[in-house]
């Protein structure tokens, strides 16, 4: 049995073998996909997105800045929290107001342009590249510094008075020649102050010194108050997330694709089209051919069998089986050929069979000439009895 199985195995692979072969062929792809997913997860973990309340003056969480806002208010510098760039631009027109812009990644290009046109001083906290470009031209983001604490090392009054400041992880910048750079890490400052079009713009590479959690570290509070509280009021712009898809300035991804890449794709499409043309052209015509009919010869017999079954024609089936058995028995018993279908010969056949097999005549009679079986089990049993009878007549 096992030998037969193992002999048959190479010809027809089992489901396990098929699965193993598919796995072998697909495992490279699977491994690459898993590696990609792992890489994506790792990058997402390393670049963890800031919490929603980060640098929010109304939030008491570690990342919020309510403490700073309250201190400033107590010192007579009211902090107005604005969540919309237009409102911020309007509010910042008041003379003496300092505009603090945090979370600038949520600002659209139009909003940045609007903010750039406001007259008052600006404090940019952790600005994005477009925000830097719009509000502090000349200052460029250089890299990220991971040293926690830094000394002022510059002549800026606000910084000198604050002293050492705990920054945590901070962006560092390339300052233009006319700008003042403080808290330098290897030539690159964490804090840059430039004058742009008659106003002072201060860029701070880390929001950490302003947060509730770190305000009491080193000279953080002093630096925060010196920077934000330089005027007589503060407009704190923390933009809401722009509505998805809304805003006329939202650029579609197609605008972001460089022209060359677009042409590259067009050319690839053309190549694909040519390849399709190449494969499309047949070598010669499709040849149609009349096919012979395929009719299995035994089809009518099988059809009759199904009809018997559908109509539970036990009587006809039993009749056919009995007459077939009689037909085979008669020559074995030495009776004339036509006897099998002749009712007058019934008794003779029955007694001959009974003599030959030693069965009871009545049993033989009911097997060969009995009434139709009452149920399906009876029909199956009848075939067994007839087979038995035949076997015994052949080999008494």
């Amino acid at each position, binding site marked *: 049995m096992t030998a037969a199985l193992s002999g048959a195995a190479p010809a027809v692979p089992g489901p396990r073998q098929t699965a193993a072969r598919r796995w072998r062929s697909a495992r490279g792809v699977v491994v690459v996909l898993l590696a990609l997913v792992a890489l994506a997860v790792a990058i997402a973990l390393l670049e963890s997105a800031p919490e929603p309340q980060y640098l929010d003056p109304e939030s008491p969480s570690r990342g919020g800045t309510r403490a700073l806002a309250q201190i400033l208010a107590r010192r007579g510098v009211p902090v107005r929290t604005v969540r919309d760039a237009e409102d911020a631009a309007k509010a910042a027109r008041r003379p003496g107001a300092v505009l603090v812009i945090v979370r600038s990644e949520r600002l659209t290009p139009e909003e940045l342009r609007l903010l750039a046109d406001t007259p008052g001083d600006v404090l940019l906290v952790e600005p994005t590249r477009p925000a830097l470009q719009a509000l502090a031209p000349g200052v460029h983001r250089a890299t990220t510094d991971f040293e926690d604490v830094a000394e002022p090392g510059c002549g800026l009054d606000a910084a000198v008075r604050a002293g050492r400041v705990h920054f945590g992880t901070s962006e560092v910048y390339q300052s233009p020649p006319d700008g003042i750079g403080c808290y330098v890490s290897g030539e690159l400052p964490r804090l840059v102050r430039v004058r742009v079009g008659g106003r002072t713009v201060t860029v701070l590479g880390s929001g950490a010194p302003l947060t509730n959690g770190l305000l009491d570290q080193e000279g953080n509070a002093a630096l925060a108050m010196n920077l934000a509280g330089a005027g007589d009021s503060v407009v704190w712009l923390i933009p809401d997330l722009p509505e998805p898809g809304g805003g006329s300035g939202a650029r579609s991804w197609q605008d972001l694709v460089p022209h060359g890449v677009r042409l590259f794709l067009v050319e690839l499409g053309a190549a694909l089209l040519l390849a399709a043309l190449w494969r499309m052209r047949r070598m010669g*015509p499709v040849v149609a051919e009349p096919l*012979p009919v395929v009719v299995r010869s035994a089809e009518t*017999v099988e059809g009759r*069998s199904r009809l018997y*079954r559908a109509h539970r024609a036990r009587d006809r089936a*039993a009749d056919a089986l009995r007459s077939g058995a009689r037909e085979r028995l008669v020559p074995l018993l030495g009776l004339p050929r036509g006897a099998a279908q002749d009712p007058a010969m019934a008794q003779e056949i029955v007694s001959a069979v009974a003599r030959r097999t030693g069965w009871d005549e009545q049993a033989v009679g009911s097997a060969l000439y009995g009434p139709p079986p009452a149920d399906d089990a009876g*029909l199956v049993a009848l*075939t067994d009895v007839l087979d038995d009878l035949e076997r015994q007549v052949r080999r008494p």
Partner: protein
Amino acid sequence: MAVTGRLGLLAALGAVAPLVWPSWWTLGALWGLLALGVLADLALAGSVRDLVLHRSGDASVRLGETATVSLVVENAGRRRVRARLRDVWPPSAASSPRVTEIDVPPGERRRVETRLTPTRRGDRAAVTVTIRSRGPLGLAARQLNRPAPWTVRVLPSFPSRRHLPGKLAKLRTLTGQHVALIRGQGTEFDSLREYVDGDDVRSIDWRASARRSDVVVRTWRPERDRRIYLVLDTGRTSAGRVGDIPRLDCSMDAALLLGALASRAGDRVDLLAYDRRVRARVEGASRSDLLPAMVQAMAPLEPELIESDAAGMVSTIMSRVRQRCLVVLLTELNPAAMEEGLLPLLPQLTARHLVMVAAVADPRVGEMARARGDLAAVYDAAAAERARADRRRLTAELRRHGVEVVDAPPEELAPALADAYLALKAAGRL
């Protein structure tokens, strides 16, 4: 025309260019270059129209064997032709190779051979020859279909010819070429010769011996020059498949064996294929070319899906043969078809001729009759028993009319029919 994969590949490689020079002009230039290449190829490719095609090779092949047909491509043009060539045949001709590469300089010719291993009987005609002539750059090609007619006739496979030597040996026993002849039924007086040791004393011709003062025996030989009329029924019942072979093909095999045997035995053999009209006929063929003629006549025969016209068949037979002959009817013992068709007309036929009916029995019916186990199997067995009973009844009915019936499974039909013929011959009933 046709473009090649190389053109697509070049276009794909050219996709790097706009990354380096991002401008529509780059693409324009690239496409212009490719278009130029394509035009140059089309202009410079060898002309397919100037090719002359000649066919030669096998015109017929036995089913299951391989025929070789060659195609000679002659370049009458002025340019070299580098091309892919496909000799197009119907699918059932199973031609190979599908596509060949040819390279024909002007004025020269190349031979392309196509092997056919047909899967069905009948005539297979070459459809066309497709030639795709490439340009020198290999970017584009000219393609054209050129006719090159040829037909291969696929003959019946005649697998039962392996039985022929055995049956011929039996026949020789009958004719006495090997064994001392004993006078019997079905023999006719042949000649007188001198007695040799071992001859049967009963065959001594005393009258002749008295005249010659020597012992002379009579020799006998079986009857010769009888007519055998083979009739193939190509009606709907011949389409049924036994195993995977149509009944008609089994009947042909049996007819071929009988024809071969009877022609060696010195009898005249004719063949008729009939359903509602005459499909094929072989009459008056000489001994040596009977078999080829029969095979050629049978090759294109296909079962027709119509009821055979028994009356037409009988009247055709009656009109074709006047003298007494053995009519061998290769058909199916289908009760419905027989009872309505042939049975009522049998007396006409048997009155003048000896009739033999040969039919292919389906082993599947026997299998079904032996099926046991569940209810479905028992009903199968009952239906099969019923079919066999019908067949037996029909056989008995035919025998009552004096018809010989040969009913055997496909692989045994041909030898069984040959044996029946030999038995008739031995009994001198022809």
